[in-house]
C-alpha cells in the first residue's frame, strides 16, 4: 500500500479552474492514516502519503477524491453532500476535527503535508471510516423528539419569535460527531454522552413547546452525563456549524442546578 507520489495526469481536475477568484494550481501532499481490516501482512495501520494537483478553491474532500479516483481506489472515507450539510465526512485534518468538504486546502497550509486521520474515540472500521453506532446510541438515549401531553392542537402550536430563537443555535446540528470525537473526556473511555447528545437535548429542553425537559435532564444527570464536561471547548472549536456547544452544555448544567436546589 505504498502510494505513487507522482504528478497527476494533466487533465486532472479542471473542475474549478473557472471558479471565480481561482488561484493558480498547486501541489499538495496528504499524509493519511490508513487502516485496512483485511490486510494480509498484519500491518494494518500505516501512514500513507499522496501528492495531488489542487486548485484555488479545492477542499480536502476534493483532494481525497482525486486520490481515490486517480491513485488508490481503496482509500475509504464517507461523504455525500460535499458542502457541509450532511455530516458524513468529519475527520482529523492537521490534528483538528473538521469536515473535509468544508476545509479549503489553501486554508490549512498546503506547503507542508496535510495529515488526515479518522476522528478519535470511535472504533475505526477502515481508513477514515469509524463506527458511528456508539455516537448515535447516545443521541437516541436523550429522547431527541418533541414530547407533549394532551390533545394535538388542530393548527400549529403557537410559539413566539423569542421562544423560537431560544434554541435556534442547537437546531443546526448535523450529527457529524466532530464535537464528541474532539472531546478529551470522550476519548478516555467512550462512555461520556458527549457534546452532540447534549446539544440535541438542549434543542428540546429549551423548546417552549416541549414538555420532556425533566426527563431529559434526569437522563443527563448521570455520571456519564453533563457533569463530565470539563469545558475544554474542543467541541465548540470543532463544530462545523458554528454551534456554541460548550455554552449549550453550560445551559443544560444550569438548568439541572436550578432544578436540584
Amino acid at each position: 500500500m505504498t502510494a505513487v507520489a507522482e504528478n497527476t495526469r494533466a487533465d486532472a481536475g479542471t473542475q474549478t479552474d473557472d471558479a471565480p477568484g481561482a488561484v493558480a494550481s498547486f501541489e499538495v501532499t496528504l499524509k493519511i492514516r490508513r487502516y485496512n481490516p483485511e490486510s494480509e501482512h498484519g500491518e494494518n495501520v500505516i501512514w500513507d502519503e499522496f501528492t495531488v494537483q489542487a486548485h484555488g478553491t479545492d477542499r480536502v474532500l476534493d483532494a481525497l477524491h482525486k486520490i481515490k479516483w486517480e491513485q488508490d481506489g481503496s482509500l475509504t472515507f464517507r461523504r455525500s453532500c460535499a458542502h457541509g450539510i450532511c455530516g458524513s465526512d468529519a475527520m482529523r485534518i492537521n490534528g483538528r476535527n473538521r469536515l473535509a468538504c468544508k476545509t479549503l486546502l489553501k486554508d490549512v497550509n498546503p506547503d507542508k503535508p496535510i495529515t488526515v486521520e479518522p476522528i478519535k474515540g470511535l472504533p475505526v472500521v477502515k481508513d477514515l471510516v469509524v463506527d458511528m453506532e456508539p455516537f448515535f446510541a447516545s443521541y437516541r438515549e436523550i429522547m431527541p423528539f418533541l414530547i407533549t401531553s394532551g390533545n394535538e392542537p388542530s393548527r400549529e402550536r403557537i410559539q413566539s419569535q423569542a421562544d423560537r430563537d431560544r434554541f435556534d443555535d442547537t437546531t443546526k446540528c448535523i450529527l457529524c460527531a466532530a464535537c464528541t470525537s474532539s472531546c478529551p473526556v470522550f476519548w478516555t473511555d467512550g462512555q461520556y454522552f458527549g457534546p452532540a447528545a447534549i446539544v440535541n437535548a438542549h434543542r428540546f429542553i429549551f423548546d417552549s413547546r416541549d414538555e420532556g425537559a425533566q426527563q431529559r435532564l434526569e437522563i443527563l444527570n448521570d455520571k456519564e452525563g453533563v457533569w463530565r464536561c470539563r469545558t475544554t471547548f474542543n467541541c465548540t472549536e470543532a463544530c462545523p456549524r458554528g454551534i456554541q456547544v460548550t455554552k449549550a452544555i453550560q445551559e443544560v448544567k444550569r438548568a439541572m442546578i436550578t432544578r436540584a436546589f
Partner: protein
Amino acid sequence: MTTTPSAQVIPSPRDPYARRKTTRGNYELYSWVFMRASGVLLIVLIFGHLFVNLMVGEGVHRIDFAFVGGKWTSPFWQVWDLLMLWLAMFHGTNGVRTIINDYASRDLTRGILKTLLYLAFVITVALGTLVIFTFEPCPANADPALLASICFE
C-alpha cells in the same frame, strides 16, 4: 511513503452498542457545585495562608516550630487552617477521583486507585485535624529556644 506498522485488532463493525450502565442521580451534580464553592473559599484561605507564611517578614525562613506554634494559639488561625485543610482535601480528593474515573477504564484499576485515594484522604484529614486541635504550643520538655514567645508570657 513512510509506513509505520502497528498491529490493531478491531472487532466486527457495528458492534451492538450499549452504555455500560446508567448511573443517574444528583451525586455528580453536588460534587460539581462543591468544587466551585470550595474553590472560591479556597482562594481566600490559601492565598491568606501563603501570604502570611511566605510573604510577610522573611517569608519561608521564618517558618519554624515557634512560628507555627504561635499561629495556632489563636483560634482564628486554628479555624482558618482547619477549614483550609478540610476544603482542600475534599476538593482535591474529589478532583483526583474525577481524574481516576476518566483515565482508569478497567473496573479493578479504578477500584484500587480510589481505595488508595480515600485512604490517603482519611489519614491526612484525621491527622491534620488531630494536630490542629491537640496541638500543644509549649511542650513541657522542649528546648525553650524553639518555642514561641507566648510560652514565656
